[in-house]
């Protein structure tokens, strides 16, 4: 019971919600990527691997270039490259997209550590000093608004980016021609094709975009928060993002809500030093929370009609 009151007290502190938002952003980026990819009809469970790859190359680049922005670009490029593999394998070669996704995740987990070993040997990968990491930016004026200021306007630069991308993704998907075509391709590629829409180009674009976003998330994790690379540091976040995407019924804002739930759970856990409960049961919180929400309110969610089905021009 004391545990509960401890948590309730936390819920009214700005610092908690500040970290909730920060943690959600980390999940939001790959989740948005997933939404875009699957809306175009390509199942993407490879955000984990793309994130991890992004994380490694962000650190690698930052250590060499001493410039977080360039490093972030490199990370996005690396993530995009991983996505390109997924795209070629599942669009050009029409492989099972789940197999390909799993393969990407395994590939990234192995390759990053393998490279760490080859490049740094037994040495530390090294640390990014704060001056060379993606900065926290307290928006002048706004950030001094009590509570709200700390929660929304005193965050890492990537958090702002993620929130902008959230709105952007929603608008593009549901208000623009591009979005209309992406959704068409994901719902009924043949119809889109016969209407003169280039199915393959759109799918390639969507998948690669998902890789770029995941790579950016990796950069945020590696040179925005952790400031170093540790093997397997994404720690399943790509899968959580996947869950968030489905939980959110393949919509940007739906996914964001899910990310907030996970973020809240994790943020609460971080306070285990002042919550009187087994830290382990506390760790299970976000996941149990999700199960309950799923069982209760969310209910059936079905993907875009052609999600996961390779497109064969002319074939039935």
């Amino acid at each position, binding site marked *: 019971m004391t545990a509960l009151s401890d948590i309730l007290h936390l819920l009214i502190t700005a610092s908690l919600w500040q970290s909730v938002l920060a943690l959600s952003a980390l999940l939001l980026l790959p989740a948005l990527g997933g939404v875009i990819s699957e809306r175009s009809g390509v199942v993407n469970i490879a955000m984990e691997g793309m994130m991890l790859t992004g994380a490694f190359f962000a650190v690698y680049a930052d250590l060499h270039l001493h410039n977080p922005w360039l490093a972030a670009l490199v990370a996005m490029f690396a993530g995009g490259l991983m996505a390109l593999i997924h795209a070629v394998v599942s669009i050009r070669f029409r*492989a099972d997209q789940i197999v390909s996704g799993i393969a990407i995740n*395994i590939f990234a987990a192995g390759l990053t550590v*393998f490279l760490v070993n080859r490049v740094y040997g037994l040495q530390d990968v090294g640390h990014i000093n704060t001056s060379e990491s993606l900065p926290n930016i307290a928006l002048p004026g706004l950030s001094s608004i009590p509570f709200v200021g700390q929660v929304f306007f005193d965050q890492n630069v990537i958090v702002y980016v993620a929130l902008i991308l959230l709105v952007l993704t929603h608008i593009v998907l549901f208000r623009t021609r591009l979005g209309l075509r992406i959704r068409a391709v994901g719902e009924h590629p043949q119809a889109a094709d016969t209407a003169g829409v280039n199915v393959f180009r759109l799918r390639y674009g969507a998948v690669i975009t998902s890789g770029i976003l995941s790579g950016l998330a990796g950069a945020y994790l590696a040179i925005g928060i952790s400031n170093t690379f540790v093997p397997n540091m994404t720690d399943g976040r790509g899968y959580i993002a996947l869950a968030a995407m489905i939980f959110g019924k393949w919509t940007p804002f739906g996914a964001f809500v899910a990310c907030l739930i996970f973020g809240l759970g994790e943020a609460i856990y971080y306070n285990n030093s002042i919550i009187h409960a087994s830290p382990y049961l506390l760790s299970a919180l976000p996941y149990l929370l999700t*199960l309950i929400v799923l069982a209760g309110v969310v209910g059936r969610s079905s993907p875009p009609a052609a999600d996961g089905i*390779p497109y064969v021009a002319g074939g039935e």
Partner: protein
Amino acid sequence: MGTGAVVARPRRRLPVIGRLVRGLAAPLGSVLFAFVVGGAIVFATGANPLDAYQGLLCGGVGLACAQGENSALQISNSIVYAIPLIMCGVSVALPFRAGLFNIGAEGQLLAGTMAATAVGVHFAEWPTVVLLPAVLISGAVAGALWAGIAGVLKATTGAHEVVTTIMLNYAAQWLLRYLIIGGPLQPPGEFSASAPIGSNARLPTFLPNDSAVIVFGLPATVYRVHTGLIIAIVAAAVFAVLLWRTSLGYEIRALGQSQKAARYAGVSMRRTIIVTMLIAGAFSGLAGAVQIAGVDHGMTDKYFSDTTGFDAIAVALLGLGSALGIVLAAVLFGALHSGGAVMQSDAGISSNLVLVLQALILFSIAANFLGAIVRQIPGVRGRRSAPPSGAPATALVTESATAPPDESAVST
């Protein structure tokens, strides 16, 4: 002309063999492809691929051992790794047939280990004939229930199984930590481990449990390969029979192919979804119990870093969802796992290379790169700008391609 004649004429055995050969060609080719590309990566990073593969070969199947490794031991290790992979692989493959993606094998396995440990510890003094089955069954039941949660949620509220099983994985991991750190399964003292299960709860190894006996130059106790192997093989067989020889299996496959058709055929979606997940979970839970009873004899923190359930997804996919394929894939992954360590200690090349290889194998089996390459060779029939729609792994969802050879008995 009616095809009566065609149908009536009995088929020769040949096609079966042919089908087997064709069935194996793709996976073997993919492995080859993976090793070539993997070798290139190793070379690119300035190491010698041959050293690497010599280590892998030795650690995997006990061949070409350069530094006095014991071949028999390496094979034994590979098998020990393969055992849980087989059972979890089946546990992923079955729901796949019903159109369900079970990412939760890991959580179900952990549930199995927890239950098996609890039983094995609490009733340690029971006689083997009672205790061992009890341990295994409790593991299977726990796994089934853990997966059942996802099944029930799917069938009733429609909650997506991918989400729920991922959540259940994490829930299981943390529950496990709680149990052995400060929780009911932690014995007095500060150790993050359970008490050991009773000696009656242990699966016998194939070799006598006596370090005096020397086998292949090593004390018999060194070889850990245990009777869980039999359980795993049986599990794979059960899976095959269930899928291809039972009405339930028929309904599972029908549901996986077309919900509409399944409903038309009087298949109860709700029931089939739940039953499928229960059975799948039982396989993983059993795997967990077998690990406890056969290898670890107790639960430690190491299970927190366990990845069997995730590797199993790859195994199921590589095995193209067929029992034989899964067994072979599990053995391959077991060998790679065992080989990686030897490769690192012999050649100084990070054992993580095996993950890269596993991924490459998956890629090429899924995309059927070789098929594509072959098709590019002029004069090969059916040469197309695009590969055929039936790339092997796509066959996961397209029935007949994955029907086991004996399927030909059912249909001509």
